[in-house]
């Protein structure tokens, strides 16, 4: 035992300690070298006066044009991003990391609170989340002098919104309709929300994990109005959901993944977003988007520059670039959502005449009248709604 101790203690001599120290130091150095992402240096957004080399853009999936035959959206495979690079030399690092408003907010909140750079120059939350961010003071104010196209071409419906009355924090990217995605080969075309509860569709229905979309639609199916939700109408919708889930009618509550369920025939009908169905229709024409007779939901996703963004000026350039009708039309033609840029409709007809009458991009007035936006309620009520719906998603009582 004694010999062991001697060996040991002599091992832990100066040289060992030095070597260990060097090793740890080298590892730390390597680690520091390779660090990407957040840094704590305070940025002065006003300082930038020329386009930067990169722009970090976080967006939802299926939300930008992608070249034919390519499966991922990268700067090199998107026409609109490519044109931006040609004009300004900026490579847009476009990442489809926005899967859920709450989850994404959770991932940037800590940095925003600590006044650190989130790593993103543009993010695209839905209006209700965008309003939250603006109200918390965590959105950079636009320098509108850099954005003449935005000022000129923003569709009138977005002027004077409660979330951004002077249009200096949010630039709408796309608007979307929430309705039904139906596989017309596997089931008859249902036209009502309550058609989802048809026993023939048992185990083949998928719902969204977005409260405003799923509960909104179910409320419409119950004859209630989601533009002014009350605890009563909300509870009724929750009861409907719980019943249908417990009985096995609903196969899965999916986030963005519902498209995969429709494509793989795991689901024959789902609560769906209009443009998504438009995109997957290209490969699976039997999938149809239907605005239910009782009504559908309507929402907008907005470009927002988070506070402390490193490339604010370039972000403004991109927003302004997008707000040119011919660029917006390129994106629109592919994603088939509703475009907030004035004049894009004319440009789209030039890209593809058939799109001019595409119901997804240009819903008729009759359809539009059936669309509702989730109403603003008190913070307590919304918290109650969130909690109740979250329990449903978590499978409580399923």
């Amino acid at each position, binding site marked *: 035992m004694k010999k062991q101790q001697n060996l040991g203690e002599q091992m*832990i*001599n*100066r040289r060992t300690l030095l070597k260990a120290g060097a090793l740890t130091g080298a590892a730390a150095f390597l680690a520091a070298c390779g660090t990407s992402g957040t840094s704590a240096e305070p940025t002065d957004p006003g300082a930038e006066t020329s386009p930067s080399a990169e722009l970090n853009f976080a967006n939802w999936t299926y939300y930008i044009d992608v070249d034919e035959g390519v499966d991922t959206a990268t700067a090199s495979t998107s026409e609109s991003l490519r044109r931006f690079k040609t004009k300004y030399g900026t490579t847009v690092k476009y990442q489809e990391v926005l899967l859920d408003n709450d989850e994404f907010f959770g991932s940037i909140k800590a940095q925003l609170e600590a006044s650190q750079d989130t790593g993103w120059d543009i993010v695209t939350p839905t209006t209700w989340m965008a309003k939250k961010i603006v109200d918390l003071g965590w959105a950079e104010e636009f320098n509108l002098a850099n954005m003449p196209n935005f000022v000129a071409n923003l569709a009138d419906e977005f002027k004077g919104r409660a979330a951004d009355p002077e249009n200096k924090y949010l630039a709408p990217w796309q608007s979307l309709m929430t309705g039904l995605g139906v596989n017309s080969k596997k089931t008859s075309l249902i036209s009502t929300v309550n058609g989802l509860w048809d026993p023939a569709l048992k185990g083949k229905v998928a719902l969204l994990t977005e409260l405003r979309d799923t509960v909104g639609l179910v409320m419409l199916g119950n004859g209630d109005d989601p533009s002014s939700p009350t605890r009563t109408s909300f509870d009724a919708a929750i009861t409907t959901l719980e019943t249908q*889930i417990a009985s096995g009618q609903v196969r899965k509550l999916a986030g963005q993944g519902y498209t995969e369920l429709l494509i793989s025939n795991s689901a024959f009908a789902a609560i769906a977003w209009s443009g998504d169905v438009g995109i997957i229709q290209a490969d699976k024409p039997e999938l149809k988007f239907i605005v239910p007779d009782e009504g559908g939901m309507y929402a907008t996703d907005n470009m927002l520059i988070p506070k402390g963004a490193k490339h604010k000026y370039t972000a403004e350039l991109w927003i302004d670039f997008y707000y040119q009708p011919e660029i917006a039309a390129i994106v629109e033609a592919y994603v088939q959502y509703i475009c907030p840029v004035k004049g894009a409709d004319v440009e789209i007809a030039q890209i593809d005449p058939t799109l001019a009458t595409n119901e997804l991009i240009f819903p008729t007035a009759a359809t539009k009248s059936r669309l509702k936006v989730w109403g603003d309620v008190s913070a307590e009520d919304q918290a109650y709604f969130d909690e109740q719906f979250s329990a449903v*998603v*978590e499978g409580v009582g399923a």
Partner: protein
Amino acid sequence: MGMLRRHPALVPLMLLAPGLLWLVSFYLAPNIQMLASSFWSGTLETGFSFSLNNWTNYTDALSKYQEQYVRSIQYGFAATVLCFIIAFPLAYFIAFKAGRARNVLLFLVVAPFFTSYLLRTIGWRTILGDDSIILGPLKAIGLVDPSARFLDTPFAVIAGIAYNFVPFMILPIYVSLEKIDRRLLEAAQDLYASSWGAFRRITIPLALPGIFAGSLLTFIPAIGDFINAELLGNPGATMIGNVIQRQFLVVRDYPTAAALSFMLMVLILAGVTLYGRILGTDELTSKAI
């Protein structure tokens, strides 16, 4: 370093120091922090405050998510049993019947785990889908009921969990089986025991330590799993892991999330301690790998 010569007892402490520091900082401290945050009340927007009165966070969380806890234990148990059924005969085969091919087979068993856990689980989604490349043809020829569904069911979740832990089950069992002195089995035969009798009275008892170790290594992670439930399950198959994940990342109700987490940890540590008592801690920590 004369100091070390005078105090030889310092040597082990210095060897331990870096690792100990790391574990204290990044295992112990976070869990203590989490325990503290489970006694918070408030929200992210309004700020949190600590109070021991908030022990109600625990009772609230437990009463709301009781079903998920129970289900997790059930699925974990079922997955462990399923895993055992798959692993034991294979381990037996490799230990007793494989001869030279033994190492190759062992390697084949472990090899799948050099691919991504997520991709393996998604691979099961591809295989078990309603119209999949495998089930589609089987349904077409009538071997499988066309209206049968395997994906997005508790069955898929349990099967997925079991699949992921087969190597953890096989390796300890194999080690135990391999150590069995073959002469014992020969002696049994000489004494007119049937092969089944020898199996029951010699092989199984001697393999028990490996079986226990493998079961523990499967059961513990299985309870806390959420990937399989998320990718392969339906709303009726959610486990406590899914709830915890959502509470932390989406809902951001840190007090509830922390309470749920802590209860899960206590549940598992209680099981592990009980198991350690039965078998002795030395056995436990050395048999683990």
